[in-house]
């Protein structure tokens, strides 16, 4: 407080044009040290509060052994899961392992789950997002649907998978329906932003030109929202492939089931092969989705 008064006095004493001088500006810059201290204090309080439960109790009994096993598995993955090998271990035709236990088949199934799940989710999300958009429907209807979407998002995908397993049994189909429901939440959120960003002036000018309602939707709305929708669906596909790899943990198909089985039975070279396949697949899909979305954004 004292300091600030000093500065004001200093400022007043200076000739008028010096008030805009860079040195004066620097001296009278807003000082937010109390805000920074407060933030730092809050963060430290939070850390010490959370540090109280999360304690390092040393490695597990076989911790180092397991870590070594994982490392060895990643370095020398089980090649027979990836390729077709003959007795000497050389790769022979048809080169990749096409049996259902092999990594390529499992990866394909994972991608297939994600494709169908994303597609169905993307289609189901269209009516929901229009009904949850405040610009189109009355506020209370939008509110109800927003809460509904939030509910869908909060229930973890593993719980959804358990609910669906009762209907479909533990197979890849369960993964598909689970992902269709799970995707709705995020896709809706992004669809709603896309719908709200529509340039209304175009619709008005079509109105003025005497277009019918159908023509307005076809030529005024669709060209604006469809690239956004497709880009959203591709982005979600990216996420869904990643999710599909873990859905197998509860038995909903995909590569996760085999992976977790190998981890619990400590077959590290097989774990290495599955992880290798997963990492490769995910990198390819990410590059592909980034490329397509960039193309879409440029038009």
């Amino acid at each position, binding site marked *: 407080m004292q300091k600030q008064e000093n500065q004001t006095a200093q400022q007043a004493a200076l000739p008028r044009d010096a008030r805009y001088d860079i040195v004066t500006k620097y001296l009278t810059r807003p000082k937010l040290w109390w805000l920074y201290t407060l933030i730092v204090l809050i963060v430290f309080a939070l850390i010490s509060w959370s540090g109280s439960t999360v304690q390092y109790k040393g*490695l597990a009994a076989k911790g180092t052994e397991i870590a070594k096993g994982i490392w060895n598995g990643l370095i020398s993955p089980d090649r027979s899961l990836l390729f077709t090998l003959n007795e000497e271990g050389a790769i022979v035709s048809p080169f990749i392992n096409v049996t259902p236990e092999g990594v390529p088949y499992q990866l394909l199934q994972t991608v297939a789950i994600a494709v169908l799940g994303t597609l169905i989710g993307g289609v189901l999300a269209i009516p929901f997002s229009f009904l949850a958009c405040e610009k189109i429907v009355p506020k209370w209807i939008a509110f109800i649907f927003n809460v509904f979407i939030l509910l869908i998002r909060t229930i973890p995908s593993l719980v959804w998978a358990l609910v669906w397993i009762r*209907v479909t049994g533990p197979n890849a189909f369960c993964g598909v329906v689970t992902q269709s429901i799970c995707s709705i939440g995020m896709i809706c959120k992004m669809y709603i932003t896309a719908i709200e960003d529509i340039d209304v002036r175009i619709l008005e000018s079509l109105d003025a030109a005497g277009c019918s309602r159908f023509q307005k939707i076809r030529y005024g709305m669709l060209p604006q929202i469809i690239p956004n929708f497709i880009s959203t669906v591709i982005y979600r596909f990216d996420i869904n492939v990643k999710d599909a790899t*873990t859905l197998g943990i509860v038995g909903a198909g995909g590569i996760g089931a085999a992976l977790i089985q190998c981890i619990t039975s400590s077959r590290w070279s097989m774990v290495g092969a599955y992880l290798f396949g997963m990492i490769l697949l995910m990198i390819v899909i990410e590059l592909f989705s980034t490329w397509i979305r960039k193309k879409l954004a440029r038009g």
Partner: protein
Amino acid sequence: MSENKRKDAAGKSLAARLTGVILMAAIGIFCALASQGVTPFSIVLAALTVCAALHALRTRTMKLQNGKSIVQPGNSSLLIGMLMADIVVASAVLTGFDFSILVRRGHQFFVILEQIFQPDFNYFPKVVDPLLDTIKMSILGSVIGATLALPVSVIASTNINRSGVVVWAQRIVLMVIRTLPTLVIAKFAALIFGLGTFAGTMAIIVFTFGVVSKMMYESIETIDMGAFEAMESFGASKFQSFWSACMPQILPTYLSYCLYALEMNIRAAAILGYVGAGGLGLLMDERIGWRDYRGLGMVLLALFVVVLIIEQTSQYLRKKLS
């Protein structure tokens, strides 16, 4: 001369187009035939794909009034549609998609869901501790992961680090880290560090580190480097100039990413217990094992409220930051 050049360009684009169309058609036909063998349906599908490819290759030459002729490229939207259809059919076969199961056994879906939506409030006292564990795990993991991410993202951005090899090595490592699912990391951590919250925190640290680093180096590359260069030219060291010229620019984005990571982590931390990494997931696993779906409903309700509060707070703060 210019005529020749134009022809060259046209030839190049034609070759690129031809490759693209053949590639798409090949993938489509492969999907159609490999997924279900040679059946009438798959043959029809493959034939339609070929027709769509031919349609995409058909160009039309038009003569303008001034005597010039222009070539209108074929329309490939039909081919893309057929390719999508092929992929969907192949996926449906591969996953055993069967709509009749949904119709026949659809009512089973509501058996568990109904119980989840009638939470057992007597169970609440038992939820509190794991819930706090989940929150603590995600806060600690977010803070540590985000702190580690800041220097790494600076090293991985091309406008500050001029050494291409280091940048790309860094990025490949980050990409591999991001591709590992959180549950798998948590499973490994639980095996190495023993069951409990520490393993969960480790998994969250790794996940946050990967995500925040990527978002940060992307936004560091978009900042204005003028001030940085000016300070360097005055003789300031690289660190000094970064600290005073770039830090103020990236700090708001960084904090907003940290809050965003915290939002994601609360959700992620809730299921980590499923593989033995502490928190709410442990309770969920146990309730599901007991088939006590009303207890599970209570767990989910508590999670819902916490996620709602944290999301609203963080969205408010992020709006203030931007």
